């Protein structure tokens, strides 16, 4: 275990050193990423300025949903880059090299890169959280901090799970599927709002199929001290530390299955 952590540490240090070779480029790409993800926030502000409120939710409250979701995704995105780019690895046959090494392939992919420029999203998630906190006069008690932290970690696990599933599909299709973006990027976009605003089928998809509602929506409800308009019990907010790792584990099981199915394209 310690050995494994040390190995991941080595990989990440190498990845960071590599990215630091192009400091100006890294800075610009981080800024570009901040800007690109920032338009969602700007879009939110424009809509709230025009409509005033959203089914009884204020912009400050939505900012908390937004911040928790985006913080989680930025973490998952930074770790999951290896899985995200997995399609090219299969296509070129370079995945064979990973198979030769005496470590699990999932570990190697997760450790492959720690993408620093993705921190642009984390930065603006924090901005949203701080702004929401100030507007609402929210007091982060230790209990709420725990809720927020488990929500972010749980949601990050679900997102990593999604990236793993996306990569797993490439074992069969050789190509990364754009359709999976609906669950990853679509999930981030969807969870930026309280799920109560969506139609029933959509809520079900993001509760039972991809349990992001359990890791993003219910914990934030508890943080905001609001009762669930859908009538869910308050303990649902504490399920995140259970749901997140479980989805991740499920995705990794699927990964193993896919790996056994792998046939190299290269020679």
């Amino acid at each position, binding site marked *: 275990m310690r050995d494994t952590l040390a190995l991941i540490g080595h990989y990440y240090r190498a990845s960071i050193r590599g990215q630091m070779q192009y400091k100006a480029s890294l800075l610009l790409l981080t800024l570009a990423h901040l800007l690109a993800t920032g338009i969602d926030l*700007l879009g939110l502000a424009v809509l709230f300025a025009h409509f005033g409120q959203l*089914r009884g939710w204020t912009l400050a409250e939505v900012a908390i949903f937004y911040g928790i979701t985006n913080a989680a995704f930025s973490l998952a995105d930074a770790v999951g880059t290896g899985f995200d780019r997995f399609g090219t690895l299969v296509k070129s046959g370079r995945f064979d090299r990973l198979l030769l090494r005496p470590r699990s392939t999932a570990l190697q992919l997760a450790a492959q890169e720690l993408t620093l420029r993705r921190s642009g999203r984390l930065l603006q998630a924090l901005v949203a959280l701080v702004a929401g906190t100030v507007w609402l006069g929210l007091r982060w008690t230790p209990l709420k901090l725990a809720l927020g932290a488990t929500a972010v970690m749980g949601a990050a696990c679900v997102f990593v799970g999604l990236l793993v599933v996306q990569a797993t599909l490439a074992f069969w299709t050789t190509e990364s*599927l754009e359709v999976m973006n609906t669950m990853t990027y*679509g999930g981030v976009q969807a969870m930026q709002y309280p799920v109560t605003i969506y139609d029933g089928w959509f809520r079900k998809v993001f509760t039972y199929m991809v349990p992001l509602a359990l890791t993003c929506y219910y914990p934030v409800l508890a943080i905001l001290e609001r009762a669930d308009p859908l009538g869910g019990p308050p303990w649902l907010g504490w399920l995140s530390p259970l749901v997140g790792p479980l989805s991740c584990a499920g995705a990794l099981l699927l990964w193993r299955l896919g790996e056994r199915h792998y046939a190299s394209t290269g020679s």
Partner: protein
Amino acid sequence: MIATAQAYAAAWGARFRASLQYRAAALAGMATQLFWGLMRIMVLAAFYRSTTAPQPMSVEQMVGYVWLGQALLMMQPWYIDREILEEVASGQVAYQLLRPLDLHAHWVCRDMANRASAVLLRAVPLCIVAGIFFGLEAPPSVGAAAAFLLTTLLALVVASTLAAVVAVTTMWTISSLGVRQMVGTVAMMFSGVVVPLAFFPAWSQPIVANLPFALMMDVPGRFYTGALPLAALPLELARGAVWILVLTLLGRGLLARAQRRLVIQGG
């Protein structure tokens, strides 16, 4: 003159046929866009239900506008003919310069062909599905349909001249990723794909209406749904003509400067 026109027509035709080959990718893309469109509509509909104030467009018009935003997604200037960018990065652009064709005109032509096929491939099936299942209605009048078609053609030319400007900047930056991301982000926001431009604050309306981005989606979308009266057509056409002129001059000017100090990568 005729021979030159034939050469451009041939470049156009070759590009168009080549991009029609990727049908599976188009199908996956369509599923993704259906998902995004549905989500955007649900969010906006929830905002509509949150207020009783009169809105600049009806719910039906908003639904149509969102679907057109998805259908015309490939008009966005972050989508640029990959081969043009690769030509510059790899130095193959030198061969293009040897040809007895104007490079800027050639680029605009190729980009237009690529863009037109990409838009058509996605728009036609998407509009059929959205029309049958998801509330996209036909334009309210023949005039509105004609204005939509006319402004969509205008959008094509504006987008391709802008894309050519972005492509020229690659001659300085080699990697177009940063510039493309920046331009793409701004364009997504100010063309109405993220939030319909009608919901922007009143003070910003004169600004966003005069940016070239509004022409790429907002204007055709509003004509299609009837949110913009036919009387507005001459003004929009004039705006389009001015932007095409400005972007063409800018693209040609930059290209001329770039050619004077061109470094061909590779031996």
